[in-house]
């Protein structure tokens, strides 16, 4: 049957014409919606900071002597590479990425201390934000220290650590960029060309 015309005897159109008249919500409707979404955005920021604190707050770590030795070695390596890593290491939190020699791209070492993590990866614009990228999976070095060294192109980049495939954690020792209300606060890194 011709569904559109079957009922078009004028009555229905008269009804529809009345109902098509504009209706507008109260003058303060937009303000109320925006107040609501701003509240959601603020709550998200607080939630992220809460998660962040749980991951990065200094805590007592019980380690076996051989693990402590391994961790100390890893930290020492990072401190040597970063130059200013002493502050970060003193807090047992994380080390900023350290650059290693190359050209066109550089090998960058990313280090995060996350004692309770089961998995740590690095995702950034240099790997398509792919936390599963095999070249950016950090290895647990003991004592809660995770690190990975991977090649990153010369230029400005944003990145984040991804803990246990779900928690996005900005590098506490690197500059942060973009307060993204739907994702994470990312870290920034500038990879310089090799100086010969």
């Amino acid at each position, binding site marked *: 049957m011709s*569904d559109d015309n*079957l*009922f078009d005897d004028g*009555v*229905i*159109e*008269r*009804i*529809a014409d*009345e*109902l*098509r008249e*504009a*209706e*507008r*919500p*109260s003058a303060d*409707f*937009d303000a*109320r*919606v*925006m107040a*609501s*979404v*701003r509240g*959601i*955005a603020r709550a998200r920021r607080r939630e992220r900071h809460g998660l962040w604190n749980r991951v990065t707050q200094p805590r007592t770590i019980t380690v076996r002597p051989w693990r402590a030795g391994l961790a100390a070695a890893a930290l020492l390596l990072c401190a040597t590479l970063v130059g200013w890593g002493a502050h970060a290491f003193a807090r047992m939190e994380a080390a900023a990425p350290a650059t290693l020699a190359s050209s066109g791209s550089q090998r960058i070492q990313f280090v995060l201390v996350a004692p309770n993590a089961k998995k740590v990866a690095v995702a950034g614009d240099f790997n398509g934000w792919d936390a599963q990228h095999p070249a950016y999976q950090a290895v647990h070095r003991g004592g809660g220290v995770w690190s990975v060294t991977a090649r990153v192109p010369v230029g400005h980049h944003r990145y984040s650590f991804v803990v246990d495939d779900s928690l996005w954690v900005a590098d506490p020792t690197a500059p942060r960029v*973009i*307060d*993204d*209300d*739907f*994702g994470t606060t990312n870290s920034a890194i500038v990879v310089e060309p090799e100086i010969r």
Partner: protein
Amino acid sequence: MDGSSDAAIVARVVRGDVEAFGQLVARYRDRYFRYAMHMLGNREDAEEALQDAFTRAFRSLSRCDDPERFGAWLFRILVNRCRTSGARRSRRLRTFVSDETALMDASEEHPAEQRAWREEIDRALARLRPDQREAFVLKYVEDLGYDEMSAATGVGVSALKMRVMRACDRLREMLSEVHSV
């Protein structure tokens, strides 16, 4: 108003520009408020449903698969929200209270006869089964095609056609009882 596409605005919001969401609110509020009014019958419930739809959309914006069709996505959220609200509340009573207020506030620009006609339409619409009211409003007020209606409601095209047909029959029947059409 900013002439940016929905997709461009959605991208800004997802990147953290919360205030850009205001452009989407301004773009869709009036049209979608009309739908909520027809489905729920009073301003208070309609505003609550629409505000909730915008809020839910904001919460889930990063999961909006096709930002270019943000409006259609938001409308689906609103349709569901109106169903939930309509099922919770006693619509008819609230509608009649609302109508009395509307009559008292009515502008003199509208002849009494036209006001009465509109009032009868609202009453008849309120007496339709919710699924028939939904189908009728989508078809004849929002001017959607059956495929679009199906996408918005999750109901098959055949069922929607049947609902529209029954809604039309019922509206004719009710309005012919009280008004010579």
